[in-house]
């Protein structure tokens, strides 16, 4: 065994190590300062800051960790550290920062302050799982990371225990999660049986050089897609989403809708790219092995996902449920970017995700502020909010407009790049279906605005003022949504740097 390898490998997974160390520190701090939990959020922040610096360094500092050079000539390993993974880790880190503030403000979390240590420890467990998911290139590691992420999120979904819906969310999440990760494990075992390896790069080499039964392989691929599809809540693995999103504490709902989805997308793209793609052509299209028709599967799933998500969202009266279905629809749009199977499509997905992070978390934050005060998440209770609290009303309007994808907000740029990729790939029909979906989506987002501004409240209301830190935080979330809507060059540039997946 080669020690150099081990040391260089460890230096490549620095962010993961930092997160693990801080996970332990949080538990220790929780044990030592049993009575006073005020320190823990700051400890979490410190860990996130260190990890974020290390992640940013990963954009340029790339390589393979834990290679098995003894066995094969290839230097490819279990963990692939590249700019692509770093981008998603950055998304996860940013949403974690936001989550810390979320939890700090959230009433639901405040009521269970006794368990704050466990809360942050579990969140760090999630982060660790997501980090590994975004850079794992070995099926076993992928599975372990997925389970780490899932187990932490099951507990977090039922964390506040203030309502019966909470436990329902947790249990539903667990049952669906167990089923789909079981399916995924079955898929992994078939892959292992076929190729004799769990490493994605070796599977790629194997698939390219051997004749294999396409039926078996398709079956296994679909099984693995079931596990991933569950994480990104694509149809038909989306059934848990509305119930879990509605039942879980809002901070966790928001986090699940962005961070855990990001990890799922990172995994999906890396799995397809590393195991099935042989090379990029000069225009950035992937030369995909003809063993499995990912293109058709992804198009079908994405169209179903966005259409079903949008159509179901139309009938929701609970805003968290509505946002849950809208997040299913957004997953559909992003899957479409993957379905193009080109670097352009990938750029679109990255850009979309970056903007989606701000607009979705921003919308959830305002929903949480309102729920903190009124205890209600029904859209009907938003009547007249635009007059009692103009700031919240306008901010939520802007987030909703961004989620619809109207210019001049960042949401439009995300959609624009997606459609650019689709049109470039001559997938016009699909693009039109996606665009028609945008029109459907308009209706339910606008409904919230209608209730805030157009419908007068029946009960007497009075002005609601927002404390300054919350105003600053909302402005901080709004700024990227508006600024990148008119000047998106830097984000696109950055996303373009980050689509390079190692290993071709």
């Amino acid at each position: 065994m080669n020690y150099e390898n081990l040391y260089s490998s460890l230096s490549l997974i620095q962010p993961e190590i930092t997160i693990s160390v801080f996970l332990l520190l949080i538990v220790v701090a929780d044990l030592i300062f049993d009575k006073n939990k005020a320190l823990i959020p700051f400890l979490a922040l410190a860990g996130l800051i260190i990890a974020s610096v290390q992640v940013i360094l990963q954009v340029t500092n790339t390589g393979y960790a834990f290679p098995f050079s003894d066995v094969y000539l290839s230097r490819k390993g279990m963990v692939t550290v590249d700019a692509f993974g770093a981008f998603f880790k950055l998304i996860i880190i940013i949403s974690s920062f936001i989550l810390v503030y979320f939890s700090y403000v959230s009433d639901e979390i405040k009521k269970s302050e006794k368990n704050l240590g466990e809360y942050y420890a579990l969140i760090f467990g999630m982060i660790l799982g997501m980090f590994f998911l975004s850079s794992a290139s070995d099926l076993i590691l992928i599975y372990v990371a997925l389970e780490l992420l899932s187990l932490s999120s099951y507990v977090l979904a039922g964390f506040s225990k203030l309502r019966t819906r909470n436990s329902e969310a947790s249990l539903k999440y667990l049952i669906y999660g167990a089923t789909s990760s079981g399916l995924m494990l079955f898929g992994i075992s078939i892959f292992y049986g076929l190729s004799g390896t769990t490493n994605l790069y070796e599977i790629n080499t194997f698939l390219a050089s051997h004749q294999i039964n396409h039926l078996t392989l398709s079956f296994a691929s679909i099984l693995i897609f079931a596990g991933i599809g569950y994480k990104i809540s694509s149809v038909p693995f989306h059934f848990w989403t509305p119930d879990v999103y509605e039942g879980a504490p809002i901070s966790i709902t928001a986090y699940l809708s962005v961070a855990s989805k990001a990890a799922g997308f990172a995994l999906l793209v890396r799995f397809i790219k590393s195991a099935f793609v042989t090379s990029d052509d000069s225009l950035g299209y992937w030369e995909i092995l003809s063993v499995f028709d990912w293109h058709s599967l992804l198009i079908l799933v994405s169209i179903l996902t966005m259409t079903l998500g949008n159509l179901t969202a139309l009938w929701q009266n609970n805003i968290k449920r509505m946002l849950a279905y809208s997040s299913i629809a957004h997953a559909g749009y992003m899957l479409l970017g993957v379905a193009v199977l080109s670097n352009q499509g990938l750029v679109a997905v990255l850009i979309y995700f970056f903007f989606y992070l701000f607009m979705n978390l921003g919308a959830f934050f305002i929903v949480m502020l309102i729920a903190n005060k009124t205890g209600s998440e029904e859209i009907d209770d938003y009547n007249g909010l635009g007059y009692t609290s103009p700031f919240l009303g306008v901010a939520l309007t802007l987030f909703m407009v961004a989620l619809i994808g109207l210019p001049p907000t960042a949401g439009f740029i995300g959609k624009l790049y997606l459609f650019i990729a689709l049109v470039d790939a001559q997938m016009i029909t699909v693009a039109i279906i996606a665009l028609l979906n945008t029109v459907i989506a308009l209706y339910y987002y606008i409904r919230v605005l209608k209730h805030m501004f157009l419908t007068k409240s029946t009960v007497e209301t009075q002005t609601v003022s927002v404390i300054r830190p919350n105003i600053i935080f909302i402005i901080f979330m709004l700024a990227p949504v508006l600024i990148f809507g008119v000047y998106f060059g830097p984000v696109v540039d950055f996303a373009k740097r980050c689509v390079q997946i190692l290993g071709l």
Partner: protein
Amino acid sequence: MEGFPIISLITFIPVIGMLVILFLPKEKVQNIKITALAATLIQLVLSVILMANYNYSAGGIFEESSFQFIDKFRWINIEGLSWIGTVKIDYFMGVDGISMPMVLLTSIISVIACISSWNISKSLKGYFALFLLLDTGMMGVFVSLDFFLFYVFWELMLLPMYFLIGIWGGPRKEYAAIKFFLYTLLGSIFILIVMLGLYFSAMEILPDGQRVFTFNILTMMDQSNYTQDGILSPFNPNNWRMLAYIALFIGFAIKIPMFPFHTWLPDAHVEAPTPISVILAGVLLKMGTYGILRISYPIFPDITRELAWYIALFGAVNIIYGAFVALAQKDFKKLIAYSSVSHMGYVLLGMASLTTAGINGAILQMFNHGTITAMLFLIVGVVYDRAHTRGLNDFGGLASQMPVYTGFVTVAFFAAIGLPSLSGFISEALVFIGAFHVESIRVITIISTLGILLGAGYMLWAMQRVFFGKLNEKWSGLQDLEMREYIMFIPLTIIIILLGVYPSLMLDVMNTSVNTLVDFVSTNFTNISLGGL
């Protein structure tokens, strides 16, 4: 005027006004109103300055050098990699003979609508902020020469309009607002998809010799800029140009609104508050026809020639259908709304003729319809403010009660009918002259003239029901016009009469550009196979 970004200033002065309003406290009602009025007035003054400095002999349309008051700089500049092209988007604005009348129209109507908004009392701050944002959106559409910029402005208008109808509108405001929003967004997505298709078909040559895809509308007009295999490239034997043209046309037609897509208009008009109806009819409808002239015609001249007959047909349907439906209305505002549908049909008919006279008439009709219908909606607003009803049959004999008002009404109604010496006559006559000249649509034109007859019918009938006959005792307390209303009516009346007796004032502005456009459409993009469809 060199170096002074007058076009950008005209476009963005309302946004500056909006920001000022947002920082004013809610209680300072008067200051808010004055700020809004000041912003629109400055816009008007700048537009007049623009007009005064306008060079009548420059053609515009497809040549950047003959556009005037150009503001252009690189807005987005993303360097490409081997697999992804460089993305360059220009901030590119300028005017030519087609957009100049529209710029003037927008600024006039904005000032009038702003004055007309004086009586709004509910959430004044929000109202004027949204109003000014809407103004910027409209103005931006008329001056943008980059498709991306055009689209951003096009969409920018939707949200303010939704709120303006939805918050300050009538009893069925929520329905009307969402219907407007859904319809126009549906139209926009067609425009978006064609925009992206064009983006991947036309390439601009940068000064350093690099060829990049572009959103520049002028570049898309030049056949030599198209790639060999772009989906909307005329060189591609399997191109989608016909489909793209239809999609783009539907996108614009929803805004006009053209016959099967017009159902949002009566709802929106009836529910919107008076100033917003004025904006809607005065400016927004023109954006559809303007878009066709600015984008569809020069970018797809081949398909335009192919489909001109159908455009004329839809124009005729609009004229006749709108007129018949207007005849059946009992609501004053709905009557005006359907008369708009009918009058926009003339614009379509004139455009479809592809002759100088016809297109001149169409653009002049856009301008005239803007001013006349704005006045008609103000007229409805005046009577609605006083009587709180709009039923045509509820009134009668108002002429004796409100003589001055009736005077203005007569001018506006006769202008809408197309009485000679009022502006509506000139433009309708030009449209018919142009359209009659073209053999293929002659029959359609002849049938369309029926619209004038019907127009006279519903207008005069409405006039008779409201203003003549015996005075309904209920309305004996109605006051005649007040100062603020004079300020709105007099300028519009002057414009209507002035353009009726001296139309060259406006025709000279557009003539060179229209000639260029007609020439461009009838000669360019020849020898193109229309494969694919």
